[in-house]
């Protein structure tokens, strides 16, 4: 019975079950992380020294490999000297959940090391602006072009083969070129996001437009719709819910190009923050910043999904997305 419920195919579930599963999908990885962090005999390949004893190179707070630590304990015992003391620990690149949680708070409240450096929230805001302009610019070109390609076969044939080729060129490869053309500040960063998103966008949206039921177009024609009104009154409203879903997925795409884009020219935004913190081995801050990106992206997507349900009451697929 339970097995049947878990593997029932495309069945609707109660809102409570949806919520519970949604929360569980976050709790499971968190649980795994907690186990690795807090249960001493799981992994913990290092030892955090609390008392170096007679070992001359050890200091309190130092992380050493478990093997090295055990060797030293044996050595000291043989020589009848004070053995070092310590507790099992994970490497510095895997901070415990509570440390990251704390960093989450302190990262926002700690002033930057240098007074003219940006605060974390300023870095984040800068990143969001880059994404916004990149995605907007890409959409202004990509959405109309995609719709046109999906509607007029000849134009599609003229445009799509080249785009098909261009989308395989990795966007980061254009970094140096974009810096040469657009300078070292935000110009090339926005450009990288546009290059990374636009070509996929045209193809994805053209495909969506092509999937519109052709008899709807025919029905509209027999009702006296002219060729140009066909696009604005049938194609666009007909694909709008799918177009909206495509845009949500493509926005995720734009986020993945963010990190590369921000390394181009003068490093900036959340990427600058992450590289700075990694340099000082503040990995709790690094994780906090990475999670911040995830939370922002997911939060925004959830917001858009909510909005979609309002915008397209006739669409039965958005209700489930």
């Amino acid at each position: 019975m339970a097995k049947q419920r878990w593997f029932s195919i495309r069945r609707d579930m109660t809102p409570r079950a949806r919520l519970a599963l949604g929360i569980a999908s976050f709790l499971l990885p968190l649980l795994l992380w907690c186990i690795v962090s807090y249960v001493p005999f799981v992994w913990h390949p290092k030892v955090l020294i609390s008392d170096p004893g007679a070992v001359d190179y050890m200091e309190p707070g130092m992380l050493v490999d478990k093997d090295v630590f055990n060797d030293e304990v044996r050595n000291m015992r043989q020589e009848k000297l004070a053995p070092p003391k310590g507790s099992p620990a994970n490497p510095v690149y895997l901070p415990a959940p509570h440390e990251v949680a704390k960093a989450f708070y302190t990262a926002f409240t700690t002033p930057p090391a240098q007074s003219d450096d940006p605060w974390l929230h300023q870095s984040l805001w800068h990143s969001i602006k880059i994404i916004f302009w990149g995605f907007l610019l890409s959409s202004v070109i990509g959405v109309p072009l995609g719709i046109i390609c999906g509607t007029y076969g000849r134009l599609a044939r003229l445009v799509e083969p080249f785009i098909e080729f261009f989308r395989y060129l990795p966007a980061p490869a254009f970094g140096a070129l974009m810096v040469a053309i657009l300078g070292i500040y935000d110009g090339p960063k926005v450009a990288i996001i546009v290059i990374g998103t636009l070509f996929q966008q045209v193809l994805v949206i053209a495909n969506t437009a092509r999937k519109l039921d052709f008899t709807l177009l025919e029905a509209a024609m027999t009702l006296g719709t002219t060729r140009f009104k066909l696009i604005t009154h049938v194609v666009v409203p007909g694909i709008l819910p799918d177009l909206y879903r495509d845009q949500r997925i493509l926005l995720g795409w734009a986020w993945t190009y963010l990190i590369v884009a921000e390394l181009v020219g003068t490093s900036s935004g959340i990427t600058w923050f992450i590289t700075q913190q990694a340099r000082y081995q503040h990995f709790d801050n690094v994780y906090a910043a990475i999670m911040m990106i995830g939370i922002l992206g997911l939060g925004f997507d959830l917001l858009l999904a909510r909005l979609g349900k309002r915008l397209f009451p006739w669409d039965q697929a958005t209700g489930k997305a």
Partner: protein
Amino acid sequence: MNTEQPLYLQQEPAVRERFARIREREVILEVKHLGKTYDSAQGPVHALKDINFRIHRRELICVIGPSGCGKSTLIRMLAGLDNHSAGEILLDGKSVDGPGSDRGMVFQGYTLFPWLTVKQNVMFGPRMQGQGKTQAEREALQWLELVGLEKFADAYPHQLSGGMKQRVAIARALVNQPRILLMDEPFGALDAQTRAKMQAHLLDIWKNIDLTILFITHDLDEATYLADRILVLKAHPGEVQEFIEVPVPRPRHPGQNLTEAYRATKARLEELIHPPEPPASEEEEIKPHLIRLTRVNDNVE
């Protein structure tokens, strides 16, 4: 009465008089030497060849024929959705070129715009012709009332049953006041009861407004019940076999299917559509090869 004539050609005086009156009405649609050839990978396919007929104002014409004889091809050319490769289509004496609102179309599949409410769907045609919103809305509601769906004006198509969807599709086509309403198996996807209701409803509409209808079906009863005249096509190549004047008197009602005129007409249609010795057509060449997949003595018959 001439007893040597086949039964289906014998008409009561009232029926004969009615057909005489119809013939005096102006011709709405005239089709001359119409032909359609598809270029396919296996060479040209002659879907239709030398089709000729005329339809008068306020006639209800049904087109029947075996599957693949080119009924859809014909109606799509009349609607202007496909080009014809030979001949001429004249609507009110003017040559047809491309789709237009003077020919309404109801499709077999559901083609309501899912993003518009029922009312907005019906308003679509007038709006495309540049009519104002309030005027279009008033007309839409009027036609929705005619098909009995004014209560569902603000519902979306996905909330309607199949029969209701086709009613809206009819209203959506009629609001444009087309010269002719083209219907390609519009009730084909409906269950038998809904279908009978829709047929009666269509006759009601047709009676009450100045409307000429060309109706495709493969259901002989549907054709005999609805039509003034039935255009019978044959396949490979698609040609007109006979244009039958249905001798069943009007007003029609379902009880008439036991009358002699009705049975004679249907018998004639059967004879034309399912000839006693069928020539080997593509369809007949498909012979399933049945193997027995059950125990030898496990018989159901």
